[in-house]
C-alpha cells in the first residue's frame, strides 16, 4: 500500500555520462530543434566515453539514481578515435558485474548518439524514463 502511494508522485532520477563531442552535442541539438523530452535526466559532461570510470556509475546509483546512462560517439567516430571502444569493452563487463551485485541491468543503459542525432537523444530519454518508471525506484543500493 505504502509502496503504491509513493509511486504516484515519484519521478525517476536519471544520470547520464556523455562525451562532449557527440552525445552532449546531440543533446544540444535536441535543444536547438526544440524537441521535448521528460526533465528527469541530469547529464555530466566528459571529454569522451573512454574517460568514464565505472566508479562514477556506482557512485551515481549510490547517490540515488534510478537509472544511469552512458552515451558517446558511434563506433569509428570517437573524437579520440578509440575511447568509445575502451568504454564499450569495459562497461559491458561492468554491466555483468552490476547484475552480480544485485542491480537490475535494465537500469544501466549504453548507446551511441552523434551530434546530429537530436531526435535520437530525445527518444532515448523518453525510453529510459518510461522503462525506469516500470521498474520503480531503486531501493537498497545504498544500505
Amino acid at each position, binding site marked *: 500500500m505504502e509502496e503504491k502511494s509513493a509511486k504516484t508522485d515519484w519521478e525517476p*532520477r536519471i*544520470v547520464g555520462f556523455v562525451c*562532449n563531442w557527440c552525445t*552532449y*552535442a546531440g*543533446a*544540444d*541539438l*535536441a*535543444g*536547438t530543434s*526544440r*524537441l*521535448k*523530452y521528460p*526533465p528527469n535526466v*541530469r*547529464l*555530466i*559532461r*566528459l*571529454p*569522451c566515453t*573512454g*574517460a*568514464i*570510470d*565505472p*566508479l*562514477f556509475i556506482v*557512485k*551515481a546509483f549510490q*547517490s*540515488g*539514481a534510478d537509472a544511469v546512462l552512458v552515451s558517446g560517439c558511434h563506433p569509428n567516430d570517437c*573524437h*579520440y*578515435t*578509440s*575511447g568509445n571502444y*575502451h568504454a564499450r569493452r*569495459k562497461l559491458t563487463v561492468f554491466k555483468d558485474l552490476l547484475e552480480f551485485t544485485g542491480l537490475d541491468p535494465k537500469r544501466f543503459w549504453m548507446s551511441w548518439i552523434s551530434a546530429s542525432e537530436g531526435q535520437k537523444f*530525445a527518444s532515448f530519454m523518453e525510453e529510459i524514463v518510461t522503462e525506469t518508471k516500470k521498474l520503480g525506484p531503486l531501493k537498497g543500493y545504498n544500505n
Partner: protein
Amino acid sequence: MANIGVFVCWCGSNIAQTVDVVAVAKAASEFKDVVYSVDYKYMCSSPGQNMMIDAIKQHNLDGVVIASCSPRMHESTFRSAAVLAGFNPYMVEMANLREHCSWVHDNREEATKKAIELVRMIVAKVARNAPLNKIYVPVTKRALVIGGGIAGIQAALDIANGGVEVIMVEKEPSIGGHMSQLDETFPTLDCSQCILTPRMVEVATHKNITLYAYSEVDSVEGFVGNFKVKIKRKAKCVIEELCTGCGLCTQKCPVGKKGEVMNEFEVGMAPRPAIYIPFPQAVPNIPVIDRENCTYFKTGKCGVCAKVCVAKAIDFNQKDEIVEEEVGAIIVATGYDLYPKDSYGEYGYGKFKDVISGLEFERMVSASGPTKGKVLRPSNGKPPKNVVFIKCVGSRDEKHGISYCSKICCMYTAKHAMLLHHKCPGAKAYIFYMDIRATGKGYEEFVKRAMEEEGAVYIRGRVSRIYKRKDHLVVVGADTLTGKPVEVEADLVVLATAIIAKDGADKLAQILKISYDTHNFYNEAHPKLRPVETNTAGIFLAGCCQAPKDIPDSVSQGSAAASKALALFSKKELEREPLISRVNEEFCVGCLACQPVCPYNAIEEKEIRDRKGNLIKKVAHINEGLCMGCGACAVTCRSGCIILEGFTNNQIFEQINTFENLISKFEPTPEETVAKK
C-alpha cells in the same frame, strides 16, 4: 573554502520563458560556497561580461558559474572575458540551462527544479576546480614533406617560399609522381610535363629545400613541433656529388636490352637498364643502380657503367644510409596506386595484349613515351580503328572491386577520347559508362566537347565480357538507355582502373601514428572543417593519399597543408589547452598499463634517479605536447594516479554527490518582480 559567483542568464526569453531564472539565482545563493548570485538578461553581451568581471573583483570570487547556454557555445567567450579580469579562465564553468533545459521542457516548475539542480552540480564541480595554465611547447621551424608528387611539390614550394626549410623525401629515383607520366591534362589539355617540370626543378634548386630522392621514412618520434625523423637513403651506387647526369652509363648497361627488366615509369611498356634514370626530365637527374637486376650485384662481373663513367661516380660499395632530421611539422603526400592488372578477368586485362589501362594509354599518347606519341595496338603495332574505353573498372563495384568512386576517370576518359581523335586520325572512341560525373569548373563543358565536337560515342551500361574474334576484341555489354544489348568490335580496349591507396600506406601510417580508413586512405581530422589535418597534431595530408582526386584538388590541398604548417611555424611556441592528463609520480608503480590505451602515444616511460644518478624507479610520463586529454589512461590506471585536468575524479564525484538531496521545492517569483527587471 571557495568563493563562487553564479550568474543566471535569461537569454532574453529563451531561458526565462520556461525557467524561473530569478528563483534559480535565489536558490543558488544558498548553495555551499556561493557568495554571490545574480540573474541578468544577456550574460554574453558586453554589459553581461563586464558584470561578471566586476563581480569577480568586488566579491573576490575564485570560481564562476555561468548558467546560460551550452558550454559548446560560449565557454570560450566567458573564459576569455575572465582573462581580461586577470582571473584564471579554467575557474569558469557553465551550466546548460538553455539547450538542456528551457528549450526541451514545457513545465515551468519541473524545468526550474531541473535548472536549480544543474546549477548546483556545476557549483559543486567548480568548488573542486584548480587554476590551470596554458601549455607552451617549442617549435622546430622545419617541415618534412613525404612524397614528391604534385601535391607534395606544391606544399614544399609554398612552405619554402614562406621562408621555412623543407626536407622532401621521395621513394622513387625522381620526384614528379603520376603527373609526370601524364600527357595532356583535363580540362584545358595543357601538357603535363610542361607545367610540372619547372616546378620539379624549382624543388631541386630552392635554397630552402633539401631533397632526398630514392629514400623512405624509417621512423618518426616526438610530437607536434618536435618530431625526430629517421630517413633511409637507399644506396644509389652513384656518388651524387660527382655524377654529371650525362647518362652514358644508362646507354652502355647491358641489362634490359631483351626486355627482361621493364621501366615502371612506362608502366611496363618499355625496357630499362639496371642503371637508369626513370625519364629524361627526372629530378634529380642522377641514375640509380637497381641492385636486384644489376649483373655486377648478381654475378660479381660486369661493371661496365663504372668503366664508362668519366666522372668516376659509380660506387658499388655504397650502403643504405640513415640520416636524422628534426622537424616541427610533417606533410604526407604519398599519392595513389592503380587497381591491379589481373583483378578484372572478364575484361581480359593481362590476358589480351590489346586491353590496356588508362595510364598505359597516357604513356602511349605521350610524345616521349614508348611509342613516341603514336596510338598503336600492342598486339601488332598497328594503329587501331575502334577503341573502347570502359569506365568504373573496379570503382563503385562493391562485389568485385571497391565501393567508392575514383573521381577522375570520367574526366580522363573524355580526355582520352579527344587525344585518340587528335593523335590517331580515323579512329573512333566508344565509351561505356555508368554515370558521368563532371563537377569541376569547365568539366561539364569538357565532356560535352568530347561528345559533341569530337564525336565520342557514349554508351550507358556495364560491359559484361570481352572475347577475341580473329584479330579483334569483341566488347559485349548492355545499353541501359535503350535496353538493348550492344557489341563493339574493338582493336584496343582502355580500362579506367580504380584509384586505390598507395601500396604500403598502412605501414607508413603506423610509423606516423595517423589513422586510415578501410581502404587505406588516410583520415582527415574532420571531413568538412579540417580536411588537411590528421588527428595527430602537426601532421597534415595533401593529394591522393587522402582520397582520389585530380590535379587541381591535389594542388589546393598541397597549399592548404602548407598554410597549416606555416601557421604552426608563425609562433615561437605552441599554445595548448591544459585540459590534459597528468601522472602523480609518487604513486605511479610504473606498470605502464596506461600506455597502450593512449590513442596518441603520449605516454612514455620515465626514469626517476637520485642525485647520484642511481635509478629509484620508473614511472609513466605524459607528454604535454601530445596528450589530447581524452582521459582513457586515467580510467585505466589501477593505482588511480592519473588525473585528467578539468575533469578530475574529485570534480565528477562532487557533481554526483549533489544527487543525494533532491530539490523538492523552490519559491516561485511573482510576476510583478519579473516584469520590473
